């Protein structure tokens, strides 16, 4: 009864991570996939915190969620704007 709260927290974060990973892989909308990837990075940082690795959590939040997320958002923006006026869109 004493350690039910950490167990609850860990199982909640693990289930949410698996669900986000599945949604990221199976969605058709690219922007939604990128956004879910950013959220996955944030939650993964919280999981590293629970695994007693704050340095990995810092790296995951800065590189995984922040830097890669911003670069992927930039890439999605470039994909949406057609370079030349053509038949696309």
């Amino acid at each position, binding site marked *: 009864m004493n350690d039910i709260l950490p167990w609850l927290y860990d199982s909640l974060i693990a289930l949410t991570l698996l669900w986000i990973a599945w949604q990221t892989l199976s969605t058709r909308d690219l922007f939604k996939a990128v956004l*879910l990837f950013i959220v996955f990075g944030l939650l993964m940082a919280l999981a590293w915190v629970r695994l007693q690795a704050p340095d990995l959590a810092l790296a995951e*939040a800065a590189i995984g969620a922040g830097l890669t997320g911003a670069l992927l958002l*930039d890439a999605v923006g470039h994909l949406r704007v057609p370079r030349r006026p053509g038949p696309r869109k």
Partner: protein
Amino acid sequence: MEKLYLALAVFLMLNVAAGLLRILRGPTAADRMLAAQLFGTTGVAILLLLAEAQAVPALRDVALVFALLAALATVAFVKRVWYRKPEDIP
């Protein structure tokens, strides 16, 4: 008091899981981005609570990075994905 911190962290994780629904069915792209903003703020709160509950002061630095990067993602979204081309503006 540590138990109360952990209980509030569990509650905030439930909030995050509920906010995921808005990402999955937001009508516009801005709604989805707003849910990511919610995760930034809630993540800061969870990290501060865990820093006190687990007695790891380094987690406050992670919370600082969280607060900074949620805004960075939103700025990248507004400037690069959702902007309007100048010739479209009447």
